[in-house]
């Protein structure tokens, strides 16, 4: 019925905003209207986004459904939209998480419903906008607009220290954004200096890479640092992460879900979209430092998570560790690493959302998130225990679930590039198992107290919003190929941009096919010495 085209993309993106405008007219007291109205809008937006999954041309690395309208001609600003595989996946993740975030708010939001759901809808459009924009000006606009609803969501419906957390989130990330803006403007003016035109389009920015490479080293390093800090705050990477636990702990459940699933991905997306393709040289130059911070983040986040007493804080610190893994993959600058990093962005969106939702469930029932207050919940809440277990396993990277694919591919990729970094990161995975299972054990197992015995298991609504997460977790775990295919061409292009030597090496496919054919016979000892030489010749190929 619907085919994927630019119009539909814009409709899906702006539908939440339009929905917010309509709901604005509804009087305040109509709680159900806001709840179900915004849920319906989110679901329709998601359904409208589905055709793009099927309509995407997986063979092409080009930006698809591209369209640009002149906006501010004197500055070279266009309203340019379109998506490639990387942005498509994140865009779909956003439309996918949207309904879940609304559905989990029905019981947790008890006041000022109208504003809450309006802000949620506005936030949704802002986030979707970031992923479809192909113009730096527009990008920055969406990027900043996104912060406003998030600020209010935390500051109004948050926990006891909500104002502190909201302001910290806003100012901290704004500081990063400003650095990014400086870098954007520097490139913009450099572009004018060299080409004579003012153009904010993303393509022209990426085309600047060779020109930037000719600039002074200081300029390149400064540019890279500006982008890096801007995005690193958003990711967040060590040591720019401290806004995250506060924001997560204070935010309402839906806020945490969106924060973890989408907002943090803005940082990693920024790395993929801007830093790597625009400044490949400087990135490689600074790689040892980037890598060090990444590895510290992985281990540090895991260790700090281990001793948290608050479940939400534990999950928040686990995000620091997991996003470190994403960054490790991206920094490997090879297809395995980047694909793993991108996939892990989705995986983190799914499993960490699941964990935050799970924490939200018990918080709504007991109004505490302290691990020590729970224990033995498996007995009173068996369905919840199962779902929580699946999400925990997904988060700690158990095969058959999504997390394993992401982490496995990241580690394989980074092992090719920096073996020691991969070894250190693998330690982080061990710690991941330790802190997640420790939390699970203390919350779900052990003797049960009377107050916990009375806790109700999940109701239908809760099961329904967990179900999509569980299904996708298994789907990616067992058959990630469709997802991998979507990002295949763009990643290939990105690797060409950032690590052009990669594809120049000799291909091994024929030799491997021959080896597979030899198979079992290869185990037999050669009868005569001259036979021995035959397979040896094939492998020689081009060594390193």
């Amino acid at each position, binding site marked *: 019925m619907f085919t994927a085209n630019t119009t539909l993309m814009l409709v899906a993106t702006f539908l939440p905003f339009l929905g917010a405008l309509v709901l604005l007219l509804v009087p305040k007291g109509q709680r159900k209207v806001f709840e179900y109205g915004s849920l319906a809008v989110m679901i329709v937006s998601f359904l409208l986004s589905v055709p793009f999954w099927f309509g995407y041309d997986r063979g092409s690395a080009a930006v698809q459904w591209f369209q640009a309208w002149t906006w501010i001609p004197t500055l070279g600003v266009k309203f340019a939209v379109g998506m490639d595989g990387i942005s498509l996946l994140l865009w779909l993740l956003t439309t996918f998480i949207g309904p879940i975030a609304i559905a989990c708010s029905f019981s947790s939001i008890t006041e000022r419903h109208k504003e809450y759901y309006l802000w949620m809808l506005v936030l949704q459009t802002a986030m979707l906008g970031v992923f479809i924009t192909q113009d730096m000006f527009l990008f920055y606009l969406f990027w900043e607009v996104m912060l406003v609803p998030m600020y209010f969501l935390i500051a109004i419906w948050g926990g006891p220290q909500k104002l502190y957390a909201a302001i910290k989130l806003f100012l901290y990330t704004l500081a990063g954004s400003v650095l990014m803006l400086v870098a954007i403007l520097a490139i913009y003016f450099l572009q004018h200096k060299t080409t004579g035109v003012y153009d904010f389009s993303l393509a022209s920015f990426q085309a600047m890479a060779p020109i930037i490479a000719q600039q002074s080293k200081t300029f390149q390093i400064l540019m890279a640092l500006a982008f890096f800090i801007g995005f690193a705050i958003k990711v967040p990477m060590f040591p720019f992460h401290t806004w995250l636990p506060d924001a997560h702990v204070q935010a309402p459940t839906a806020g945490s879900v969106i924060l973890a699933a989408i907002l943090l991905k803005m940082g990693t997306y920024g790395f993929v979209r801007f830093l790597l393709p625009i400044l490949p040289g400087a990135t490689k130059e600074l790689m040892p430092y980037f890598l060090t911070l990444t590895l510290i983040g992985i281990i540090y986040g895991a260790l700090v998570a281990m001793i948290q007493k608050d479940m939400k804080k534990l999950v928040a610190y686990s995000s620091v560790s997991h996003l470190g893994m994403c960054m490790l993959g991206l920094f490997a600058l090879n297809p*395995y690493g980047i694909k793993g990093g991108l996939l892990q962005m989705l995986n983190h969106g799914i499993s960490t959302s699941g964990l935050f939702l799970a924490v939200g469930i018990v918080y709504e029932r007991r109004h505490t998130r302290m691990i020590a207050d729970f224990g033995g919940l498996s007995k009173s809440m068996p369905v919840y225990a199962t779902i929580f277990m699946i999400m925990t396993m997904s988060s700690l990277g158990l095969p058959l679930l999504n997390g394993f694919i992401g982490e496995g591919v990241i580690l394989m990729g980074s092992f090719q590039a920096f073996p020691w970094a991969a070894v250190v990161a693998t330690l982080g995975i061990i710690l991941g198992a330790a802190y997640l299972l420790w939390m699970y054990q203390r919350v779900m197992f052990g003797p*049960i107290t009377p107050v916990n015995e009375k806790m109700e298991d999940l109701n239908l609504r809760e099961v329904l919003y967990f179900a999509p997460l569980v299904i996708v977790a298994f789907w990616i775990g067992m058959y990630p190929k469709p997802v991998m295919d979507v990002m295949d061409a763009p990643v290939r292009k990105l690797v060409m941009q950032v690590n052009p030597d990669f594809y120049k090496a000799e291909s091994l496919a024929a030799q491997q096919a021959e080896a597979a*054919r030899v198979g079992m016979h290869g185990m037999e*000892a050669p009868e005569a010495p001259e036979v021995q030489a035959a397979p040896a010749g094939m492998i020689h190929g081009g060594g390193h």
Partner: protein
Amino acid sequence: MTTTMSLEPSAVTAATHPGSLLWLIPFLPFFGFLLNGLTGRKLRSTKVVDAIALGSVGISFILTLIHFARLIGLPADSRSIHQSLWTWFDVGGAHVLGGLTTYKIAWAYKFDVLSGCMALLVTGAGFLIHLFSTGYMAEERNDGRYYRFMAYMNLFVFSMLNLVLGANILMMFLGWEGVGLCSYLLIGFYFEKEFAAVAGKKAFVTNRIGDFGFMIGFFLILMVFGSLDYDTLMGSVRGIMALPSITLFHHTASPTWWFNLIGCCLFVGAMGKSAQIPLYVWLPDAMAGPTPVSALIHAATMVTSGLYMITRLNFIYINAPVALSVVLLFGSLTAFVAATMGLAQYDIKKVLAYSTVSQLGFMFMGMGTGAFAAGMFHVFTHAFFKASLFLGSGAVIAACHHEQDMRNMGGLRKLMPITSLAMILATFAIAGIFPFSGFFSKDEILWQVFNGWYHHGLYNGPTLNLVAWILGMLGAFCTAFYMTRLIAMTFYGDYRGAGNDPYGLTVQSEAHHAHDDHGHADAHGHAAADGHHENHVHELDKPHDHHADDPEDHDFVPGHHPHEVSWRMWLPVLILACLATVGGFLNYPESLHRILPIVPAELFTKWLEPLLYQVAPVVHAEHAPPAIEYGLMAWATLVWAPSAMILAWWIYKVDPSWSRAKAFVARFPNLYRWVNAKYYVDEFYEAALIGPTKRFSAQLWSFDTWVVDGMVNGAARFTVLWAHSMHWVDQKIVDGLVNGVAWLIQQTSLVFRRLQSGRFQHYAFVMFLGFLVFAFWKFLA
């Protein structure tokens, strides 16, 4: 489930035959898991759960048999059935040794000589143990968690089948982690018991430490071979070994060096999963799970995955002499140390747990000498006798009202004749008495180890082999001793549980011991309270219709006498014991074949042969086995093991008061304390690793709060402070300046206001003055 061939056609080897129903072998138990897991809670009768769980594993077993039969019909060098379901990982390109590979990892199964045997074991033993569980877990039928147990067991079978049937290392890893998860879930099955939950977590995390090595190992394989498919690896290993050197990560070394590295890394994984020193600590704790779990997962199948992995990748190990030595060293140490730990345990399951660790050590010793088939054969015989022993102990525990302390047992031979017979047979097998299966497998391993040093009569092999052999012999002695001790304590003498305790041997079970296995404090708490223990034991049999098998002891004795368990429990024990008795003849040694040519020699070794990498062509020189082989065989089975058994018999059976054992403990209290406390290894780990990690985490957390976040908040506070000072500056200086100007103007204006009198004369006077000044100034200029 579509069965598309996603690999390029050329990747399917000529030596491989497609199999279209292969995928059902692992997936049937998976469907069983899904059915039971999703609907089990709502099913009215647990019989349906039984049907699903047993049916799925049973059909899977039949399918395995069919495939195995097909395998037998094929020529030896192409015994491999392959099925590729879909592409699992397709991640573009990777830079590996020799160039760029666009290798795709498929979700594929490979049923060959090795995985076929393992699949038979997993589904066969799995089926028997499922059957046992239907009897053993009878209590759970009433409290709504029976379905969960069965679902986990099915999931385990699925994971284990993925591990053994997977056609590439990543599939193995999938199973490897999957069995870890099931182990975690099943150890912590009685999750309301704190120690069970802790034991589950300990198992998982310890295994994760091992997986760390495993992952690094297979990354290295990917880098060296550019593939993880067994077929491709096997095909290219000869070519790689022929390379003069390999350069990876700016490090150049010989292929052997890299293979050693790979072998050692992978062995770390095996240490975790197969419970070797130093990562064995989780296995004894894992006994907190229900006994069928201990039998299936922690004895017969999962813990042997490390052995399977080494045999599967034997082409790497055989080219990695250092890695093999490491395997031999750790294997022999484990075989000995764990066996000594078993000497002083009183918990019947703990004895068996340490015994398992020790026997796994023996298997690794076999691997370490390059005798993969011998090690693998011990996997199978061990699966038979140890599963039988575990299930038998489960029957005993169930019959004795969840009593696990052997001091509170005794005399059960008369009360449980079938179980005791089966366990005694299995004990002979594990002790290595001819012609029980353990003799053939263990003796072969020890001979291979010894032969490495003996070296055709030259006695110039590595000293490690001699040391390992001595450790192995000592371990074998301990094995025979503690097993006989177990039998004597459990089945001989008089039953000590019913208050009949003339020698003061019984102990008050610690609370957690009593419920180690069945954590139903509330379920049978009242039963224990009012003393109707035998009623409770009968609960186990309520769902069964086969009371005819049970001795009618309702009004037997007015005590708590246990009685034989239902057929569902003793039948699997007996079948496994029979297999343990005769199974050894499947690998009848060549040396004995010469004496008794009726039995075909080395069936198992020959069966595995196509899979084993041959460094040099096999020379079929018919030289007679050395006399020393016969000598050692006779020594082991006639002197060594029997003397250990007689010693234990003498201490624990002949003297029912165990005064000799008590005297020994009194004489060497410290030795006893150390052995009984398992050399304080757990305490050491706690003090040296876990504690410091937690403390370090706490320090990092303070660092995070005070330093990292402190800087952020500090910046904020500084900004606010600065803002305040600016405010002050603004108010006092900037605004003060503005106000000052205003004030000045005001003040000045006061002066000027005076001037504005409104009188013409004043103005005229001022004008005149001004004129005068002007003129004067002009004049002066």
